[in-house]
Structure formats: structure tokens, C-alpha cells
């Protein structure tokens, strides 16, 4: 399985990522997930979220999750970008691409890896409340 994991302080250029996609001729499905910073957190309005990561461990834990994805589903490639630092409302904090022969496994793998990320990958949110 091809894999790419990136933690970055820069905005995620999703259009560019999609345009640079490569797929073998056996692949029939690509699922993308974009996680966007919403203006509300804990019932209060925010400007942004500052994401903190234990970077080396985060990358390692993503790799372990990808190893498990590879055991579970016939996925050809995963590309994942998680933004760290200051991410304004309405911008993407997470972008994931999963490619596979058929659609069900791409959806399942994409959802599963996000759920696992939220259990294990050491990244934390610091909401920047409006007026604070």
C-alpha cells in the first residue's frame, strides 16, 4: 500500500492534491474526507483552532493505523495531511484520500482510520474563542 503522511503548518491545497492523484488501472474508487474548522466549539464561537501535535509519535501512530488498514482492506494508497498550528474557521485541518478497487472498502477504510486517529494519534485542539 502506498502511503503518505504529512503534518504541516500550511493551508492544505486540496485541489492540487486531487489533481496530482495517481491510480493503477485496477482502482475503481477514491474517497476523500476533509475536516473543516467550525465556528462553534463547546457552545462558544471561535476564530480558529490551534492544533498541537506530538509530531514524531503522531506520524508513527498514523503508520500503525495504516498497517491495520492494509490488513483489513485491499487499499492501494492512502494520503493524509493534518494541519498543525493555527487553523482559521472554514479551513481544512485534515485531508484524507483512500483509493481502492471498489467503493465500500474505500468508505470503510476512510471512516475507520479517522475513528482510530481520534483514539490514538497525539494531536490536540486549542480552540481560540472569540473575545478571549
Amino acid at each position, binding site marked *: 500500500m502506498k502511503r503518505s503522511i504529512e503534518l504541516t503548518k500550511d493551508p492544505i491545497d486540496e485541489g492540487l492534491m486531487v489533481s496530482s492523484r495517481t491510480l493503477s488501472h485496477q482502482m475503481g474508487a477514491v474517497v476523500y474526507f476533509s475536516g473543516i474548522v467550525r465556528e462553534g466549539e463547546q457552545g462558544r464561537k471561535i476564530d480558529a483552532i490551534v492544533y498541537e501535535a506530538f509530531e*514524531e*509519535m503522531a506520524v508513527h501512530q498514523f503508520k500503525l493505523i495504516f498497517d491495520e488498514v492494509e490488513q483489513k482492506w485491499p487499499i492501494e494508497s492512502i494520503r493524509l495531511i493534518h494541519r498543525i498550528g493555527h487553523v482559521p474557521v472554514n479551513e481544512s485541518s485534515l485531508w484524507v484520500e483512500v483509493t481502492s478497487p471498489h467503493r465500500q472498502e474505500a468508505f470503510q477504510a476512510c471512516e475507520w482510520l479517522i475513528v482510530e486517529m*481520534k483514539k*490514538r494519534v*497525539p*494531536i*490536540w485542539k486549542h480552540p481560540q474563542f472569540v473575545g478571549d
Partner: protein
Amino acid sequence: MLMHPIQQMIEIKVNFFSYFKDLTGCEATRIDLEEGATLEQAMEMVREKFPKLESMKRSTLVAVGLEYVATDHVLSEGEEISLFPPVQGG
């Protein structure tokens, strides 16, 4: 003056992340443990040093190096412990 010349001590670095840094007032600390000490024993020592972590006991995640390990893990010189609250990526 070695009181227990046979008992080797090891120094372990402990890292804190997210609001655990606020609770402890530091990013990292170091603790001295007897050789053969477990992760559980190290965590007890950390909680004694930083009592505010006690209330977070049930929602604390612990890693040694880059891995989540069982609390009976025996620590070795050079290993680093990281303590942090539940993760929130995405």
C-alpha cells in the same frame, strides 16, 4: 556515598502535552527510578511530583517513546515517557 551500591538508578524524561503542560507548569521533567521500575511506578512518582495530574488519572494517556505500552512495562535508561489527555485530531 552509595547507600545501595548494587541498586542502579535510571533517569527517565517525562514529557507533557496539551493542558497537562498547564497543570504541571512544564513541558518535561526528569525522574530517577530504581532499575527494574515499571511505567506504573514512574507514573506514581510523576503524580506525587505534580498532584494536579491526580484528578486526570482516568483520562491520561501514556506513551513510552512513540508507543502506547502496558503499565507493567519495565523502563530502561534512555526511554522517555509522555503523558497527555485524550487526543482530538481531525
